[in-house]
């Protein structure tokens, strides 16, 4: 284990901007932070690295006053403080940009910034704030129009609003929780420039991430957390990807998969000129066309909210198509029921695994047969066949390594990784023709992620057509044979995975068009 701790507590003459000393926070069943010590100096970017569930966000929520620590001390600029609410944190000069933005979507940028801002006039506060907003945007290179409504903005622009919100409140400490998860690679570079500018002005930035490359690129120091504990703090210039990965996971990590050459067969899923509306009645898909062949993985890349959710829903029968066609093995299945699609061999690994993937209150075995509970051998004459269900569930639990106390345990009590294994066990049983997987590894630990990716690759080898929707570009680059990039409900281009560079895909994610090849030529 790496045991290098650098400068804790600080030995520099200026006091640390923030010092979290020996913080412990317990939630029912877990110790989220176990005697964690963390220090932030003025003019540095300090990255907090760790897997999902390592306790990074909990620690920062404590600093921002959303949680109270069970024990430990918080020091800000050399003074011991008690932070009871975000209001206290703001007063102390701490700003946080949450992973899920805290913005009022129907309101204008100026109204969002003016909300709860001290010293604003009673009348027309938005107008008063607009002027100040323009100055700050100029100074830090964060262009944004104060009059625009937030829902019209891209994720990157919304993030700028969040940063400006913190700056206008005089934040010296800025906490960024997974800030690049909503950005294209180019937008991420822009953000890094803004951070450099803030650094030069003496701000301290805490950068939460689980991505090794960007942490190495942006941070001065890196603190790695695993299972609620600090593994160590290292200087970015003294470390490398492999060491960080080892600290983060606790063992050697293999970065490469063995992937067989793609041998595409017949076209299993074909989408022709599809038009679909979102919940607000606006167009979410505008003339989307593509095909997925047996034995290939088509990756759908793009920033969240560009129509991916609606695409998955229309393909699985959950959302009506207004125009266009969906063909499953040549058969027109446009606007047919989810059950028919499922019966024809369409497997769905949904985006929200707890809300859409399982029935949380039902047992593991019941969840495992949900798609086929009405058919033999699980049902006969209207009665469930307990023994058949049990036998099937037992086999699935063993085969997919689902860790559960018993088959009768309610599915909601399983961990995220095991819920996902359960969903895959159900969806992949019975040889699906098409597998539609939406963000299948989102929020999972390294072990579960590896297993889920292997399962998807195995489906491809067994001749299923796999549609993989993911915001994780690395995942798409690694698994997919071809990559389609979505932007504002359209496909900007489809490229072979081997030939695409990250920059190219990034540009397409920002709306640059490439020639679309509708049919898979394979690689």
């Amino acid at each position, binding site marked *: 284990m790496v045991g290098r701790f650098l400068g804790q507590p600080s030995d520099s003459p200026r006091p640390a901007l923030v010092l979290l000393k020996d913080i412990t926070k317990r939630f029912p069943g877990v110790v989220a932070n176990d005697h964690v010590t963390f220090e932030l100096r003025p003019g540095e970017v300090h990255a907090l690295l760790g897997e999902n569930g390592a306790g990074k966000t909990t620690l920062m929520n404590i600093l921002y006053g959303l949680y109270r620590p069970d024990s430990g001390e918080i020091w800000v600029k050399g003074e011991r403080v008690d932070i009871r609410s975000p209001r206290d944190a*703001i007063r102390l000069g701490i700003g946080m940009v949450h992973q899920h933005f*805290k913005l009022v979507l129907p309101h204008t940028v100026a*109204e969002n910034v003016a909300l709860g801002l001290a010293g604003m006039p009673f009348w027309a506060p938005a107008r008063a704030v607009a002027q100040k907003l323009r100055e700050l945007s100029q100074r830090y290179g964060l262009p944004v129009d104060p009059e625009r409504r937030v829902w019209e903005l891209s994720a990157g622009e919304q993030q700028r609003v969040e940063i400006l*919100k913190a700056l206008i409140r005089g934040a010296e400490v800025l906490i960024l929780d997974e800030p690049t998860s909503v950005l294209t690679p180019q937008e991420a570079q822009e953000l890094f420039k803004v951070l450099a500018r803030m650094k030069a002005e003496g701000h301290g930035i805490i950068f939460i991430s689980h991505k090794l490359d960007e942490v190495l690129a942006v941070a001065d120091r890196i603190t790695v957390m695993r299972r609620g504990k600090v593994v160590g703090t290292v200087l970015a210039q003294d470390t490398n990807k492999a060491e960080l990965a080892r600290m983060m996971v606790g063992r050697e990590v293999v970065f490469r998969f063995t992937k067989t050459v793609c041998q595409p067969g017949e076209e299993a899923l074909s989408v022709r000129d599809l038009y679909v509306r979102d919940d*607000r009645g*606006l167009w979410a898909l505008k003339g989307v066309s593509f095909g997925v062949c047996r034995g290939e993985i088509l990756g759908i890349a793009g920033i969240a909210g560009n129509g991916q959710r609606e695409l998955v829903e229309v393909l699985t029968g959950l959302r009506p198509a207004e125009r266009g066609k969906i063909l499953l093995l040549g058969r027109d299945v446009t606007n047919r029921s989810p059950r028919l699609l499922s019966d024809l061999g369409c497997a769905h690994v949904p985006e929200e695994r707890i809300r859409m993937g399982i029935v949380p209150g039902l047992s593991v075995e019941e969840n495992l047969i949900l798609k086929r509970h009405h058919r033999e051998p699980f049902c006969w004459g209207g009665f469930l066949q307990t023994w058949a269900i049990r036998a099937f569930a037992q086999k699935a639990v063993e085969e997919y390594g689902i860790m559960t106390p018993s088959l009768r345990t309610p599915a909601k009590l399983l961990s995220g990784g095991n819920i996902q294994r359960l969903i895959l066990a159900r969806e992949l049983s019975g040889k699906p023709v098409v597998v539609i997987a939406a963000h299948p590894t989102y929020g999972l630990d390294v072990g579960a992620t590896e297993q889920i990716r292997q399962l998807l690759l195995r489906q491809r080898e067994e001749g299923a057509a796999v549609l993989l929707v993911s915001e994780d570009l690395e995942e798409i680059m690694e698994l997919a044979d071809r990559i389609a990039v979505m932007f504002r409900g359209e496909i900007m281009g489809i490229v072979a995975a081997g030939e695409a560079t990250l920059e190219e895909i990034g540009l397409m994610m920002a709306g640059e068009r490439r020639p679309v090849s509708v049919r898979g030529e394979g690689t």
Partner: protein
Amino acid sequence: MDWTSWVISTVSRALAFGVPLLWGTLGEIYAERAGVVNLGVEGMMILGAFMAFAVTQSVGSPGLGLFCAAMVGGVAALVHAFLTVTLRANQYVAGLALSMFGLGLAGLLGRGWEGKPLSSTLPYLTVPGLSRIPVLGPMLFQDQTVLTYIGLVLAVLLWILLFRTRWGVAIRSVGENPATADALGINVTLVRYLCVVFGGLLAGVGGGYLSVAYRPAWTEGMTAGMGWIVIALTIFAAWDPLQAIWGAFFFGALYHLSYRLQAFLAPELLKLMPYFFAVVVLAASGFGRARWRRRAPAALGVPYVRGER
């Protein structure tokens, strides 16, 4: 009766009948803008109507009667706020209960007064000067009570407060995204309490208007479903105080016409008219989903719990 005077009297009466609808709707708009549905409008109105009548009859002052009506509406709304904001009860169930409770209580207390006419009523005004303008004068500036004009001014003021002031930003943010407001130091609970109670005050006055001005008498159930029309109007007005004026006027006209046309159509059918149109309006706003749904406060009907994300 000639055509012009028919139109004049219809507009004038529609305006007068729209008053309780306008006051109730303005109040409900504020409650819902802060994220709380209050289906108890009918109950708050009938309590206000009874209170206004009882106080005016006993003391002889319609002004004091209306003040007490506002208070009783506010207290009823306070109960709703306590149930839904503090205890996080289901807003729809709590609101329905409040309506039933209000109707029942007013009926019980009002037994002794049933059918009695009021001795001193809210005076009908003739605005000096303006009432002499041809056509418009008798339409708008004769035979109205002061509540008509206060209501119209109030609608404008409430619009300004909601869209052009710091408080307005806070109220709308609480209704759209309470977690965000909370994170920026807005007291979500306080804002919701204030808005719901304010809504109750206005609903109480709206009810009081019925018993001390429009039909100066007490009859059980005299609000006759106006509270439910208010709920529909709030949606019809897209949670906008200025649009509530047109909505209240339109439904006031429908109510009035259902009396006027009794000679030609079955009265039962005519009485259905406001409710029938309420359904039509709601259906229409459902179809025009893009425009309307985007305007509904996003956190409407959802209790706020800190830390739930």
